């Protein structure tokens, strides 16, 4: 083996690799925007809260889909697991403190993720897709059957969530506390995911996604890594679900439905998967479009969305961020050659 030579560490490729995890100049922008939104649009905070929760959920999906390459249509299973944990504990009067409630939600969802991951991740392709779908559907049916605890189709309403830190109340009409609470949780989770992605563990996930055979050949514990990634992603999805239940003081079967799972997949792809910020861009684009287009011309919204998906699949596989990246790259090369 060639011993490392002087000057290698200064090679541009080496510098690029070493500096991948550093915070870029534009990274604080989404957070600044989110805070600005709080002050600029106090009447749209309900929409804003829903948007932030969706971003968190999409980030959790990005971890499994964008980084580990697992295509799943059943991610709402973990969202719902978290939501119902919070909901059932609060409704039965067992536990209604918000922050610890979230931790519990994450733990339950992670357990579901670990359990199902160990069993399901032996398969791939259509089989895996079907299995994730059926697992989620099974959970939904179970929640419907256990309607004495879960409220069934009508769900659990008016959850008595305790005020945050005993001081800040969750007002259903003016969700200021909810917005800031969700924003903080989103920030914490995002920092966590970002650290994971740029860690050696995260790199190995990318390796598994790009070329699983070679990772096996290198001796990486592929299945173990995948299952761990799946469980982590499930935990974050569970946090998203739990915080959704807390912010809305409500939980029902929709948290476990195919509709929610399909929507988050669409959102992530729209923004661009495997790019961490794709979740932000996708969620904003989708929800803003959906909110305003469906007001103007409701049925056309579904037509437009379908058309958008077809176009993305055919021409813009990496979503909005992919298009932006390509544009930036073209500008750079033009700049470099001129």
């Amino acid at each position, binding site marked *: 083996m060639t011993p490392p030579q002087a000057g290698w560490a200064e090679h541009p490729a080496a510098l690029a690799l070493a500096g991948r995890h550093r915070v870029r100049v534009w990274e604080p922008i989404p957070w600044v925007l989110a805070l600005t939104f709080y002050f600029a649009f106090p*009447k749209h905070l309900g*929409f804003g809260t829903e948007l932030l929760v969706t971003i968190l959920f999409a980030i959790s999906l990005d971890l499994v889909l964008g980084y580990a390459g697992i295509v799943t249509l059943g991610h709402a299973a973990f969202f719902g697991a978290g939501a119902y944990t919070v909901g059932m504990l609060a409704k039965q009067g067992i536990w209604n403190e918000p922050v610890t409630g979230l931790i519990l939600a994450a733990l339950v969802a992670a357990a579901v993720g670990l359990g199902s991951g160990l069993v399901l991740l032996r398969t791939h392709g259509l089989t895996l897709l079907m299995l994730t779908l059926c697992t989620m559907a099974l959970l939904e049916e179970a929640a419907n059957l256990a309607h004495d605890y879960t409220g069934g189709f009508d769900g659990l309403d008016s959850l008595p969530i305790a005020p945050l830190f005993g001081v800040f109340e969750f007002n259903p*009409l003016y969700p200021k506390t909810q917005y800031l609470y969700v924003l903080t949780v989103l920030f914490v989770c995002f920092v966590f995911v970002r650290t994971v992605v740029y860690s050696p563990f995260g790199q190995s996930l990318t390796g598994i996604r790009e070329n699983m055979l070679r990772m096996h050949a290198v001796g990486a514990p592929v299945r173990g890594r995948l299952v761990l990634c799946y469980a982590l992603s499930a935990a974050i999805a569970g946090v998203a679900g739990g915080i959704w239940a807390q912010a809305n003081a*409500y939980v*029902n079967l929709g948290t476990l439905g195919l509709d929610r799972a399909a929507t988050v997949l669409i959102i992530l792809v729209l923004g661009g998967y495997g790019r961490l910020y794709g979740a932000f861009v996708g969620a904003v684009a989708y929800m803003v479009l959906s909110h305003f287009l469906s007001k103007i011309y409701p049925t056309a919204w*579904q037509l437009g969305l379908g058309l958008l998906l077809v176009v993305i699949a055919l021409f813009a596989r990496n979503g909005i961020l992919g298009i932006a990246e390509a544009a930036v790259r073209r500008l750079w090369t033009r700049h470099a050659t001129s």
Partner: protein
Amino acid sequence: MMKRIVAVAVAALAMTTSWAQAQEVKVGVNLPYTGIGAEFAQLVDRGMELYLKLNADKVRPYKITLIKRDVKDPGGANAKIAVQELLTQDNVDILAGWIYSPNAIASAPIVTAGKKLAVIMNAGTAQITNMSPYYVRTSFSMWHAGYALGEAAAKLLNAKTAVVGYTDFPPGKDSLAAFKKSFEGTGGKVIDEIPMGGAGAVPDFTPFFQRAKDKKPDVFFVFVPAGDHAAAVVKTYAALGMRDAGIKLIGPGDITQDTKLQAMGAAAVGLITMHHYHADLDNPENKRFVEAWKKEYGATTTPDFMAVGGYDGMAAIVHVVQTLKGKIGVEQALEALKGWKFASPRGPISIDPVTRDIVMNEYLSEAVMKDGRVFQKVIGKIDGVKDACKEQKIGPCAPK
């Protein structure tokens, strides 16, 4: 020349003064305009608009502006956002709508926090009106029809045994509880209860109906959501030859919804339903209503119980606006509606001052063929039916 200037000036003055007089009242409407409930949203919406059109004189000098929001699905979350935005962004004076019970249940805390009158125009789960002190319902509760039918089945149809088939979600369970309570209270016996799938996709009813047929009851009480479920129920009943086996199919009027009835054709003949409204009701208000509907929306269309929920809901709103002279405070609005009476296309209705739910007639009807179309013949009537669930404080309406 001078005359013309004066004429124009006078006209302009008249217009501005009358415009200043027409005080605007904003009504925030939430309905599932897209998605699986689109059909129902259209019926309620049309009912509301038709009331405003037919009774423009009763609205004057106020102007009622409808601000409409799409809730897309029965999931609850979108309904919450819609109601929240109607209250905080559009600053509506009155809320209205709600097709699906889960949406009404999810909206309850916001309605209470918002302190505005909220008129429920469809959602039928009994205890919804208990969830917020500002909910008033002009549609129905599952118990109105279910409870009344239980008694009617035992007394008028002389049924001793019944099998109940119901879609497995809260309105279905409500219907079961209501029917069972009154049927068994009048000497009948429910020998089997069959949950028949969820409210989403229409299941193949054959195995459920086969099981009911095997039990050989006098009547088979069926509750399914209005729409495609009902059409499939009627078809399966006919296909399995249950009528010839001597089993009467009965249920609340959801299974003979007017908009689906004609498509069911001869298979629907013999169905016995209990409901507060169908388009064949014989009273002058309804004749006027149906005629105006057909003129406005097409000769082949027909109103149904959802449309009349919207119509009567708008009547309630206009009553409130007139009584309070355009200044809508919620406590005064509730006062104005307590004991409010109205001649509706479904007969005389009023709002119960205690429960804020509707009090109305229930009609027992049998589907027959008449003049080449399916006609609902009224064979019995019960006046002034209240929601028995809240009246007797049983089941989900019992005090916690």
